[in-house]
């Protein structure tokens, strides 16, 4: 079944550095979304990028989408300790009723 796969599984950086997380998927999509999860909590939507968009910004977040490579990246600039969380990409797929499917996430640790 369609789902995003994040890479790397874990990332540890210093405060102030940029963090880049990648997501790959298998089939055609309508949109791709990134979510954040603090430990033991629900997922919070960060940003949505549609299949006809290539790049989107929201505050310190920058998302790119390359449909030819079936991949997306999430860049967090000037990271803060409070950015420590797991980040998930989710994709709908044209052949599964457009339900969002999630990957295993990237665990980001930002050290102060």
């Amino acid at each position, binding site marked *: 079944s369609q789902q995003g796969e994040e890479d790397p599984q874990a990332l540890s950086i210093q405060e102030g550095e940029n963090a880049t997380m990648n997501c790959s998927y298998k089939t055609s999509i309508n949109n791709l979304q990134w979510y954040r999860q603090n430990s033991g909590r*629900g997922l919070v939507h960060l940003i949505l990028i549609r299949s006809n968009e290539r790049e989107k910004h929201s505050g310190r977040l920058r998302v790119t989408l390359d449909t030819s490579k079936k991949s997306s990246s999430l860049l967090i600039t000037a990271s803060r300790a409070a950015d420590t969380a797991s980040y*998930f990409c989710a994709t709908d797929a044209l052949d599964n*009723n457009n339900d969002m499917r999630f990957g295993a996430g990237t665990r980001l640790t930002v050290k102060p």
Partner: protein
Amino acid sequence: EPEVTQTPSHQVTQMGQEVILRCVPISNHLYFYWYRQILGQKVEFLVSFYNNEISEKSEIFDDQFSVERPDGSNFTLKIRSTKLEDSAMYFCASSGGPTWGEKLFFGSGTQLSVL
């Protein structure tokens, strides 16, 4: 800001018992979902629900699982006879549409422990 609420936050049950997990989606949303997450692992899709019926279900959502929207506000997940491997965090989500694949709003989850 409106939010999805889930109760209880923790549920402990004996293997073979029935459990009902409850969710109150955001009031004007049309699409409802259950996901689960085993500790530290991926978020797995269970079922989606629209217009008072299941739209899609995953292979995890077998005959032991059922969903219901008994009134205009609640959305429940029932597990008829729990197994040890059902232990997980269960998340309810809703979305306003108007099409599938829009932003999901998640509840804080119910941690289910099957002993």
